[in-house]
């Protein structure tokens, strides 16, 4: 469905009425598309992205890199809420609220409804651990997603086995992870037992399969050979 940008900025829109063609027919009303600011009753929409402790310093460092594309290109208001909000809610909720947040708000001139969500995803991806350069792709492309899963979802590992699995996933100096990233055009973040994958749907699937096989114990060489075959096929498609 095309989004028609209304020329008039006013809330009231004159209804254009079509003259009926034959006798006894009612005029069908024709409505223009709503602006994002007009949606939900004209109130602005918000998104709040919590910032984990370990991402706070990188956020401070890369704040301008985040702010610029969000504010300039996506036309979404973004701000960092440093103050801890106290409220009379339950204990757990208080913890969640007490974390610092990044808040996003639509503006009047936000062109698209999905911009807010995209920005929220972008900031969320940064909070997960992805680089700005990688996360920005979320803003630019529609069909990129972030998929997360845990090692224990694949196989229950404990103690040293878990450590070894994590080591197998990343490889020496991260070479296995980079190999998967490069061949499938995804970005992977391994955070202890959680794994996040950023990329298109098909690529996420391939990367996830490789990571799962690594978790399950297959050696890196085997995974590489499969990757080569798959990436060649993927490259042929485009």
């Amino acid at each position, binding site marked *: 469905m095309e989004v028609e940008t209304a020329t008039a900025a006013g809330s009231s829109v004159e209804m254009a009425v079509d003259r009926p063609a034959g006798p006894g027919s009612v005029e069908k009303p024709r409505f223009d598309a709503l602006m994002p600011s007009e949606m939900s009753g004209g109130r602005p929409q918000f998104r709040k992205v919590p910032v984990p402790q370990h991402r706070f310093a990188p956020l401070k460092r890369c704040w301008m890199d985040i702010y610029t594309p969000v504010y300039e290109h996506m036309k979404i208001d973004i701000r960092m809420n440093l103050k801890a909000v106290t409220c009379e809610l339950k204990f757990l909720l208080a913890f969640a609220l007490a974390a610092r947040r990044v808040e996003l708000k639509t503006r009047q001139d936000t062109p698209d409804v999905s911009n807010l969500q995209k920005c929220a995803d972008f900031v969320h991806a940064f909070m997960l651990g992805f680089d700005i350069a990688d996360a920005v792709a979320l803003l630019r492309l529609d069909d990129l997603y972030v998929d997360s899963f845990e090692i224990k979802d694949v196989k229950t590992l404990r103690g040293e086995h878990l450590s070894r699995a994590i080591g197998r996933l990343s490889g020496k100096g991260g*070479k296995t992870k980079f190999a998967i990233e490069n061949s499938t*055009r995804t970005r992977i973040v391994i955070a202890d037992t959680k794994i996040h994958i950023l990329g298109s749907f098909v690529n996420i699937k391939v990367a996830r399969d490789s990571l799962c096989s690594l978790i399950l114990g297959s050696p890196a060489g085997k995974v590489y050979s499969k990757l080569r075959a798959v990436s060649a096929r993927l490259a042929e498609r485009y």
Partner: protein
Amino acid sequence: MAMDLDEPLDAAAVAEMGEAALQRLCDADPALFLSPSADLAAAARAASRHIYSSLAPLSPAQPPPFPSLLAGPAFDAEQIWSQIELLDRPLLPHLRRQLRRLEQQPPSQPQPPLEKPAVAEREQSEEEDGEGSESEELKEEEEEEELEETDDVEEMGDDYEEEEELDGRERKGVEDKFLKIDEMAEFLDRGDEEEYGGGAKRGEKKAKKNWMESDDEDEEDEDGDEDDEDEDQLDLEDFEDDDEEAEGAGEIMYKDFFEKGHKKEAKKKDGYTKKVQFKDEAHEIEVDGSEDDDDGNDEQVLSTHEKERLKMRAKIEQMEKANLDPSTWTMRGEVTSSNRPKNSALEVDLDFEHNVRPAPVITEEVTASLEEMIKKRIAEGQFDDVEKPSIVPSKAPKEHKELDESKSKKGLAELYEDDYAQKAGLAPAPLSISDELKKEGSALFKRICLKLDALSHFHFAPKPVIEDMSVQANVPALAMEEIAPVAVSDAAMLAPEEIFEGKGDIKEEGELTQAERKRRRANKKRKYAGSHKERPASLQKD
């Protein structure tokens, strides 16, 4: 063959001479034989000639090849020896047979006297004769033994010697070159053996055994011969009885033959097939054989068929016995060491297949040939090294995309950006890894080529222009010169426009005229005034 003309033709005189020569040899000092002496040699020749002629009549092959020994001075030892051997060859076995027959014969018959003293003499002379043949010696010894074994040694006298000699001469009259009485007798004996087995000949053998019993005078007469034989058989027990022998000449009774013949045959051994015989008694013996067949011995009355059956049964029994007996261990099948006597496998020549080729015998030639080959190979450089077969690729090698294991320099957004740009055609297609490698390779090669060209000076090619942004040092060409000045070009230096940008003729400070200086100042003031127009009024001087 030269005949010795010195020899008298009279036989007796020759014998005398021979004996004299023998005697001389006997008397000669043994030391004299060590050095060659002509008269001793002559004596030896004469002696051997004499002995040869004495023995020639006894030879079974009549007449002997050489009637007398040719031992003239022209003949050497080898020739004389071969002549003697010619005589001896048939004679020795003949004598041995006679001896054996004599052994088995019961010692009851009177033996004809032999020339024992002459024989003894001969023997002695033979032993001392340097040129005497061994065979003659052996022959003499055998004769001596035979004589000793017989019981009639004492009866020998010179008469018999003469008789034998006479008989020998008479015997020759009967025989000629085709008919040899002894051979005929042998042949007949053999035939009898085959037909009748051993038993038939017993009577004959008894007769044959005693070659010494013959009365030479009676041998010529057939009838007389058989009587003589019987008489001799009869007289085996009292062989010393000369009277019976004397009687045998004319007064022979039936009982002398047939009753005692039984006894004699009873005493005989069974199955004796050998005969001792001299040529003197050849015809006597064959006649005796026929006579003995008529004896009333039970065994000799068996018909031919019965005899054959007896033989067959004997054979059958023998074969059955062989079959029933346990065979030797070599004939049994699998034999372990416990089944055969100890160390018996060592005695038997075992034959088994060797699957292994026998090890080569290394001789010096083999080693030398090997070394030669080695040297030749080394000189030629022809070694049998295993060479790797060069693999010819059937198709072009497939381009493998290398998995980049380093962190990608471009972000994800940039990657998609490049993808989009390439699709839209805004940006050129990015080089693939192989293209980059090719570029790198070609750049390296060009660099090397440039250096090589600079070295050679002959085919100079200018440095390839690589469009790169790089800082150019405005250094005079002289400073940047290489060893080969030809290789340097000015093209890399800064162009004059790059050094100075400007137009018009440039004058130095000293060259400016007054008017130009004023003009310059005026321009400057105008520029300064223009740029400072916007200053606040308060700062402007009035």
